[in-house]
């Protein structure tokens, strides 16, 4: 580790922020340049996209669609985390279960998202619940695999220690088991969010839902309306990054704070 970083964490954050902003500014500049050179309706510049974004915000459409999509993301995310964690812990703890379900897991891991979505709509109809389920099913195998790894690595030394000192089930869960699983859950949550929010848009586009960012982008695509597509994409990236930096990253460093 670099000594200067250890001594002044504030300075390190400032330095990182500087580089992030510089690199983003460069990207925007390149984008503007490319838009200027091609001068095409299909590659609008940043200013144009921001204009559209402003209009969508002013009309309330942005927020209406965004909130619908975010609710779907949240539901699918929590559903996937819950079910995936339970499956992962069971197959990570019982060798028989692992041997039996391992091939199922491999199958679902490799099933293309589009297939899951299409089949869900065919079999369950285009309802709100189907949309959430389809997204969750895409994510569950990932969570299960990561939590299985966590359950496999549970320390026998520590569970013997807990037994010796009569921890009992509740104290063992809280102070011995969950802290060992937490880093795996945090990692699964971070990679999970990245996957879920991308798939949600596809689900919304395919399911013929009347609202949602995915629906909006799909409609814009029908008109080759690139500025709207980019405006929604941009807004969505910003929101997801806020969740990532504001919630998930602090959560992850919190569960790892005791490490050397």
């Amino acid at each position: 580790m670099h000594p200067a970083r250890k001594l002044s964490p504030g300075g390190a954050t400032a330095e990182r922020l500087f580089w992030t902003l510089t690199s983003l500014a460069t990207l925007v500049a390149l984008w503007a340049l490319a838009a200027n050179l091609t001068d095409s309706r299909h590659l609008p510049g940043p200013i144009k996209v921001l204009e559209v974004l402003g209009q969508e915000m002013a009309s309330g459409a942005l927020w209406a669609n965004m909130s619908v999509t975010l609710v779907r993301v949240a539901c699918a995310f929590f559903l996937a985390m819950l079910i995936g964690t339970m499956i992962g812990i069971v197959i990570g703890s019982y060798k028989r279960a692992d041997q039996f379900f391992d091939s199922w897991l491999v199958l679902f891991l490799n099933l293309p998202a589009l297939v899951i979505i299409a089949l869900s709509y065919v079999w369950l109809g285009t309802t709100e619940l189907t949309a959430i389920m389809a997204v969750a099913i895409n994510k569950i195998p990932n969570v299960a695999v990561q939590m299985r790894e966590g359950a496999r690595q549970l320390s026998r030394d520590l569970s013997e220690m807990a037994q010796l000192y009569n921890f009992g089930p509740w104290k063992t869960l809280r102070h011995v088991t969950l802290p060992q699983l937490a880093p795996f859950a945090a990692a699964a949550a971070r990679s999970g969010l990245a996957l879920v929010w991308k798939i949600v848009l596809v689900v919304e586009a395919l399911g013929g839902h009347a609202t949602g960012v995915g629906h909006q982008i799909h409609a814009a695509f029908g008109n080759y309306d690139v500025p709207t597509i980019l405006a929604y994409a941009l807004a969505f990236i910003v929101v997801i990054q806020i969740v990532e930096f504001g919630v998930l990253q602090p959560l992850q460093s919190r569960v790892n704070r005791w490490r050397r």
Partner: protein
Amino acid sequence: MASLTSGPGTPVPGTPVHVRVKRKTFPAIGGRDENTVLRDVSFEVSPREFVVLTGPSGCGKSTLLNIVAGLDTDYEGQIDLGSANPRMTFIFQTPRLLPWRTIRENLMLSLPDGDRRQDNVDAILDRVGLTEAKNAYPERTSLGMQRRAALARGFIQEPDILLMDEPFVSLDDPTAHGLRELLVDLWNSRPTTVMFVTHDRTEAVMLGTRILRLAAGSASIKADESVRLSPSDRTDREKVQAELKRIFESLPET
């Protein structure tokens, strides 16, 4: 129960601990053959006795303590702990602290919430020299400090039966010496039956009232000797060395 008569060697009321392990076998896994570690290891420990177990590395000392502690139930034989529900503590060969809890939290968690003994946590941490480090996470302290924390966690239990697996290795001499004194204090202040594993012969003779030596390979008991030293003899280097010779050179390691 401080009484003038109950010094080391004096019989104390209570029933002895019976250890009878007919056979302990680890199953064959990963290309390794089935491994019979213990065979016919039977002995009795009187209340308040301080039994030292020695034997070559890999002969099954930790395995034996695991069985006595009730953590390993997959063996042929029987362990009888004497009284109905004795308080037993095992100081493992490795510290086994919860890395995500501070040293002090580790000690607090080893006792039931609101237990009277929780009031002694800071005092015992002071005794093992961890006052400064008590709010640190274990992995941010040295291995020696983690060992001392594990010792403090064991001692604070006020156990009736205390199992210890090489507790003082990787500590410098003065620290180890201080901790041995603490152990003897603890043993003198409460009626504690101790089973103590060590490779250090001097330590064995200085602490033990009896030394059990296990043989390598499907270990059985090779020698069982009482230590004939009074408490004051135990601080006398020459007497300790003489007793060490008597015990260990009568039957050299094979």
